[in-house]
C-alpha cells in the first residue's frame, strides 16, 4: 500500500507538517491528509472520513492522545486502522499505556524520517 489517507493529530501545526513530510519521505503517496489539534477534533473528523493511518501525539489539550486511542474501538471509520503515537513522552509506562489502549507503534520525539518509515510501512503492509 503506497497510496494512503492519513490523519495526523497534534496540537502543533508545525509538527503536523513535519510528520506529513516524513510520510512522504518514507515513500508514501498521500491522497489525503487530515489534521486535528486534539483527540476530540480527530474523532469529529473520523465520524465523516475514512483514513488508512493515524499518527497521534499524546500531550494535547481538550482530549489527549491516550484517551483518543481508547475511544477508537467505538468509531466505525477507525476499525482496523493502525495508530502510531508520536510523542515527547518516552517512558516505558507511556509506551505500555499506549500499546494497551490500541496503538500499534510508538515513536519518540525527536525522530527521523527513517524511524517513521520503520514503524509505519510494516503496519500498512499488514493492513493491505
Amino acid at each position, binding site marked *: 500500500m503506497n497510496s494512503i489517507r492519513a490523519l495526523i493529530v497534534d496540537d502543533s501545526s*508545525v509538527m503536523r507538517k513535519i510528520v506529513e513530510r516524513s510520510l512522504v519521505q518514507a515513500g508514501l503517496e498521500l491522497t489525503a491528509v487530515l489534521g486535528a489539534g486534539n483527540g476530540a477534533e480527530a474523532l469529529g473528523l473520523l465520524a465523516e472520513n475514512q483514513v488508512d493511518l493515524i499518527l497521534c501525539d499524546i500531550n494535547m489539550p481538550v482530549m489527549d492522545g491516550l484517551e483518543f486511542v481508547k475511544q477508537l474501538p467505538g468509531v466505525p471509520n477507525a476499525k482496523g486502522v493502525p495508530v502510531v503515537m508520536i*510523542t*515527547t*513522552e518516552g517512558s516505558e509506562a507511556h509506551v505500555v499505556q499506549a500499546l494497551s489502549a490500541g496503538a500499534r507503534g510508538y515513536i519518540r520525539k*525527536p525522530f527521523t524520517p527513517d524511524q517513521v518509515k520503520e514503524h509505519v510501512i510494516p503496519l500498512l503492509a499488514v493492513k493491505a
Partner: protein
Amino acid sequence: MKTTSEVLADGNSHQNWVPLLEVAAQEVFELMLSCKIAIAETPVDFQPDITAMVGLAGQLCGVLTIRCSAKSAGLMASKMLGVEVDKASPELCDAFGEVCNMVAGNFKNKVSGLGDGCMLSVPTVITGTDYNLRSLTDSAAVEVRFLFESMPLIITLEVHS
C-alpha cells in the same frame, strides 16, 4: 545508591544534568532541524528577544526555557519546515515552542526514573525584551549556552526541590 527522589531533592546533583541537557538539545537540533549546535565556550553578551518555556510538574517541578533572538527562532522554523525563512515566519512561535517541548521531553527521558513521574505543560512563547520571568524555584538553575548558526542560544532549567 541514591533513589530518584533523593537525587531530585539534592540541589548539588542538578549540575550533573548539564551534560544531559546538552545532549538532549543537540539531539533535537540534529534530528528535527538537520543541523548541529555548538556549545558556547565563552559567555556571549546579547539580548534575547524571544523566549519559549515548558513547565515540568511531578517528581521534577520547574520550568525549562530557551532564549534567543527572533532571527534565530525564525531560522529554526525554516529548518524544521524545510522552507525559506520568510515563509516560515507565521509558524515561528509554534516551531520555537515545539523545539522547547522536545528538548524538555528528551531531557526528562534521559534522567533515570523521571520519565514516568514528570509531566510537561504545553509550551508558551514570549516575544519582546521588556519582561521579567520569575518561577517559584528554589534551586540553582542549570544553564547551557549554545551557538546556533553562530547565534547565541541559552537553555535554562530552573528546578523546585
